[in-house]
């Protein structure tokens, strides 16, 4: 009987000791969810510690500025070529009349 009692006490002690260890091991097996593998929307109130707005506005300003400047450069170059084509066409026409 004493042996059975000792066995039960030892079993309870072992379970009590091993349960937190197993829980920690289980936690370690679960890879942490990071933003480099998956995105998920925030739940609850939004928390910002550093101001991100200037960076976001700056990024979008760069996109718009780059596209607008490039479109303007195409328009300017195309206008110049069209002017030159008109000039050369006039010269060819004048040469043909002589």
């Amino acid at each position, binding site marked *: 009987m004493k042996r059975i009692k000792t066995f039960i006490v030892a079993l309870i002690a072992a379970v009590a000791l091993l349960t937190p260890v197993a829980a920690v091991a289980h936690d370690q097996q679960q890879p942490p969810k*990071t*933003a*480099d*593998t*998956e*995105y*998920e*929307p*925030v*739940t609850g109130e*939004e*928390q*910002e510690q*550093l101001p*991100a*707005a200037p*960076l*976001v506005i*700056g*990024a*979008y300003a*760069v*996109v718009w500025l*780059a*596209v607008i400047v*490039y*479109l303007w450069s*195409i328009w300017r*170059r*195309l206008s110049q*070529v*069209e002017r*030159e*084509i008109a000039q*050369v*066409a006039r*010269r*060819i026409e004048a*040469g043909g009349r002589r």
Partner: protein
Amino acid sequence: MNKAFPLLAVVVAAMLAYAPVMIARTPYESTMGLVQKIFYFHAPSGIVMFLSAFVCGIASAVFLFKRRASADRLALAAAELTALFGVIVLISGPLWARKAWGVWWDWDARLTMSLVLWLIFMAYLLLRRYGGPGSDRLAAGVAIFGAANVPFVYWSVNVWRTLHPKTSVVPRLPPEMRGTFLFCTLTLLGLYVLILAARTRLEQRRAELESLHLALED
């Protein structure tokens, strides 16, 4: 120029105007917050940069092997657009990184390879501008190598350990973020097609001017 051009221009302009509203309505990402919203123009710009590099490489191959001048004009237009969208990617990325990683730049595989890809197309443009006679064929070879570099840049985040988000981010986007991302991608693709058509038209008119000059000399 194609009759569809004005219609596409109106559609793209409307999409460009609506994109910021859609981005503003999209929920914040849980770990990065507001700064993650740069993603909706940064990643599509990267996609357009890759597409443009492919267009330039394929058109250059057609020019080299079939001797089609129209392919060379398309390649030159696409190279300029690769450089343009490369600038957008290389500036918007560090603005995101400053908040998300705490640094403007890190010499990791994805960032370094993206910079190298952009430099290859800048080399193409410099060759076309200052290379002299025959530089068009030499530049076409450079463009083919530039296009071949694109798959390595894309897969770099999965092969090497980098700070940059992996390619799995896009297919795993939740529906409320996926819609915005697809809308912005379509908007920038439409914008790309429009600018490419306009830039190719410029090269076509330059070729016509050259023919007229030759006719005048004769």
